[in-house]
């Protein structure tokens, strides 16, 4: 097991507090948990791409970062007034 796989496994535990934050509190507090989860997942995909030596899977991390932005922004705009 390489150091990259160990890092990926440990980083998986960072998603637990994000999940807890996303399931508790006000809608805005939940949104912050979702945003943090998106960033952690993008990092996780970079580490996994490096661990498995597949440069093409770096695109997944890039797509995750961009989609997390889109999703978070839409939620933030709707949470301003309408939800």
């Amino acid at each position, binding site marked *: 097991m390489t150091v990259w796989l160990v890092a990926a496994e440990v980083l998986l535990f*960072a998603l637990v507090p994000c999940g807890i934050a996303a399931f508790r509190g006000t809608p805005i507090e939940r949104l912050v948990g979702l945003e943090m989860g998106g960033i952690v997942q993008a990092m996780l995909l970079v580490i996994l791409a490096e661990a498995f030596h597949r440069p093409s899977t770096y695109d997944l991390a890039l797509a995750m970062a961009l989609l997390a932005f889109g999703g978070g922004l839409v939620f933030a705009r709707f949470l301003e007034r309408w939800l």
Partner: protein
Amino acid sequence: MNAATLAVTVLLAIAVLVSLICCAALVIVKDVFSRMHFLAPITCISMPALLAAVVVQEGWGQATLKTILVLFVLLMVNAVLTHATARAARIREFGHWLPNPKENIPGASTHSA
């Protein structure tokens, strides 16, 4: 263990530890505006450390360029997203996002309603 492997291990440890601390702080800290502060270190410390680890491991290649792109996107995106979320939180709380006159913020245009 050679120097490159040691450097990669240390950089990955920094990236993972900072991420774990920031994520744990999300649950520990109660105020939503304080929680948003912990979105910054994960992009400004963890992701550059991860990029440095990739550079040490791979050198300058496709993997490094794509990781730089991911870091750039996360840095740009996180600032905009945090601002949008903070603005949404303030509008939900006060009905507008401009400071109230009694908040006494120097140089800020205040909301008159």
